[in-house]
């Protein structure tokens, strides 16, 4: 991968924010705005997972737990305290980061297959806690009563437009930070670990430390995605932390392309659009999704962006 100047990524991110924020000035579409809000959460979730899968070669089946944890931590903080929304969001992300550090400390030393299994096992444990701890989490019914959306600098997040603007800015900043991490020397180290961990080890890199750092960072950004998801549904539900949700992120990564930074974002976009369109016409969403994934796997043999990069080398990234 060629090195990209940070300013170039920042300019692209700024243009993306301006374009997305400008759209409602010309045409208000609540459907489009809802789509962008959900995409913001899913894009952060899937891209953070790709930091592990695509960059480090660590396939985590339990990434959904951090997404769910971010949502619960944020929603509970907002419900139980009078803290402002940004403070609650930061606390939720910090809490998720700490949880990822603890889980990672147990998991990252294991080899690929066992790492995948143990992340799934920890997620199931976490999911069981959510279901069982009814007095705190609401159990299988989820956190009820909604999230109070306290105003931030004149921003009222109960308004769809303000939520759209907030989620767009947070998601783009989050993606920019992840982009910076992947192109940094630390990101290069992660890719070296993915390609040949023995060689990296001989170079003096402590493998478990680098992996743990990647796992913690990925957990933090998944938590940030969970905060946005909680704002959208105005609550937190156990399904956000369940293993099928981790599967959704893996699908997004595989559909979009694991070797392209924006691959998971595109994959999330495809998955959400598919869900929205298919569920209007049939109850056999799972069947259609299976066929689409099969078509991508057999037809393209890689994610869409990876395919396009091969088709037009030097253009798409």
């Amino acid at each position, binding site marked *: 991968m060629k090195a990209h100047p940070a300013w170039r990524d920042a300019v692209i991110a700024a243009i993306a924010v301006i374009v997305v924020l400008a759209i409602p000035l010309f045409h208000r*579409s*609540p*459907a489009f*705005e*809802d789509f962008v809000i*959900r995409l913001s959460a899913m894009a952060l979730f899937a891209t953070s997972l790709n930091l592990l899968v695509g960059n480090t070669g660590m396939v985590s089946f339990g990434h959904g737990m951090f997404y769910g944890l971010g949502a619960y931590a944020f929603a509970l903080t907002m419900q139980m305290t009078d803290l402002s929304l940004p403070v609650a969001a930061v606390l939720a992300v910090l809490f998720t980061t700490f949880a990822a550090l603890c889980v990672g400390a147990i998991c990252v030393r294991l080899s690929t297959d066992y790492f995948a299994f143990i992340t799934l096992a920890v997620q199931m444990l976490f999911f069981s806690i959510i*279901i069982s701890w*009814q007095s705190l989490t*609401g*159990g*299988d*019914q*989820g956190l*009820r*009563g*909604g999230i109070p959306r306290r105003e931030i600098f004149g921003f009222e997040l*109960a308004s*769809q437009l303000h939520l759209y603007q907030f989620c767009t800015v947070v998601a783009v900043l989050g993606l920019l930070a992840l982009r910076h991490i992947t192109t940094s020397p630390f990101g290069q180290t992660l890719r070296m670990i993915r390609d040949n961990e023995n060689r990296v080890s001989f170079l003096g890199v402590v493998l478990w430390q680098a992996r743990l750092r990647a796992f913690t960072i990925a957990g933090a950004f998944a938590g940030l995605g969970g905060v946005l*998801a909680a704002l*959208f*549904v*105005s*609550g937190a*539900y156990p*399904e*956000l932390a369940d293993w099928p949700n981790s599967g959704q992120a893996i699908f997004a990564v595989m559909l979009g392309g694991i070797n392209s930074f924006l691959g998971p974002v595109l994959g999330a976009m495809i998955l959400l*659009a598919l869900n*929205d*369109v298919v*569920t*209007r016409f049939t*109850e*056999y*969403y*799972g069947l259609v999704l299976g066929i689409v994934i099969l078509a991508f796997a057999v037809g*393209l043999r890689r994610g869409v962006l990876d*395919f*396009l990069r*091969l*088709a*037009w080398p030097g253009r798409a990234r």
Partner: protein
Amino acid sequence: MTTTRKPGLSRRSTLALMGAGAATFAAPWVARADANILRIGMQSILSGPIALLGNSSRNALMMEQDRINAAGGFLGRQIEFLFRDSKGQPQESARIARELVNSSGCELLVDSEASSGAFAVQEVIRDLGNVVCIHTNSETSALTADPKIRAPTAFRVARQGVHDAVAGSIYLADFSKARKLNKWATCSPDYAYGRDTTAQYLQFLKQFNPDIEVVTDAWPKLGQPDFTEVITKLIQAKPQALFTLLYAGDLSAFVNQANVYALFSQMTVATPNVDYPVMAAIKNLPAGIQSATRYLETFPDTPANKEWGEAYHKRWNERPTTWSWQCTVAMQFYEAGIKKANTLEAKALSAALTGLKINTPFGADGTITMRDDHTTINYAIGWGQTTPKEPFMVDIKPADWGKIIELETEWKKQQKYI
């Protein structure tokens, strides 16, 4: 590595992709094309093991669509339902509710979700603030009883856990006193509905018959295929009676398997959840199960109720469920409310619905009222015992609504809702 086939997109593939993309994003606006049709969004669980109940909601609403359109529609506009499957996932329920209003142009909502989905939809309705929604299936009392959760434009037309618990406990306390059944066991699904409602029943049951003691309890998982372990545990504890909140496929599977162990000859069984599809799925429905009426053509025993049940059976070749009549009553409330308010505007329509009393075949006395706390009262509840053949339930005793409301008020005070 060599590549035998050069990867790339043909012109045909590019056009197909562009066409698919255009169709994806055009769909919502195409759906809005005919502005004179009044679209009503309906969401429920239409796939998976609970789909049977979701489909019975959809069936009832399709009958209502035909009836209302034949009578001229709402405010002179023909109505059309848009059905969506939430797959029983709350976050999907929230998304669908927003999608139905924001992009599919629905002006009214019928939320036929189970409880967890209904709570998610409730928050969306509160956020949107510009649409009226009637929840038709959630029985969890807090949805409307808790003033913090109640939403200004959301209503519930459904049985309520606390109403059922009072009615059932009074009946079962009298029944257990008469038969001297003091040793009870419970067997309910291991999630919030099962645990909370069982506790609610036991609280009232012990209040009415303090001699009752629970000798064992079992908490099978939702959708558990094999109940052997549960059944043997119950039989070994030798209770005189069993109370169960298993429902739908779980209840029929439990009864079928318990028949093999002759459980029904060793204890009296009581459940509020015997519905027509459950009875149809049980190979040999044991006589003498003490049960609430979910939906029965013979209760209330009126020509209007029988006519509706038969019409449903004739059209869908299956019997209705409790979710079916609740959806029907929701549409009857919309019909009466819109007529009274003469508008679909959320605030005005909500004001018209609040306190509204309608005539309906499913009322205890031929009427059901939408109380000020946005939930229905006076719907038909009764308890009787099963028989293996039609009418499947006999000796039905109607519940006393005066007593239900008195004890519900006490319960609300305990919960600090009032």
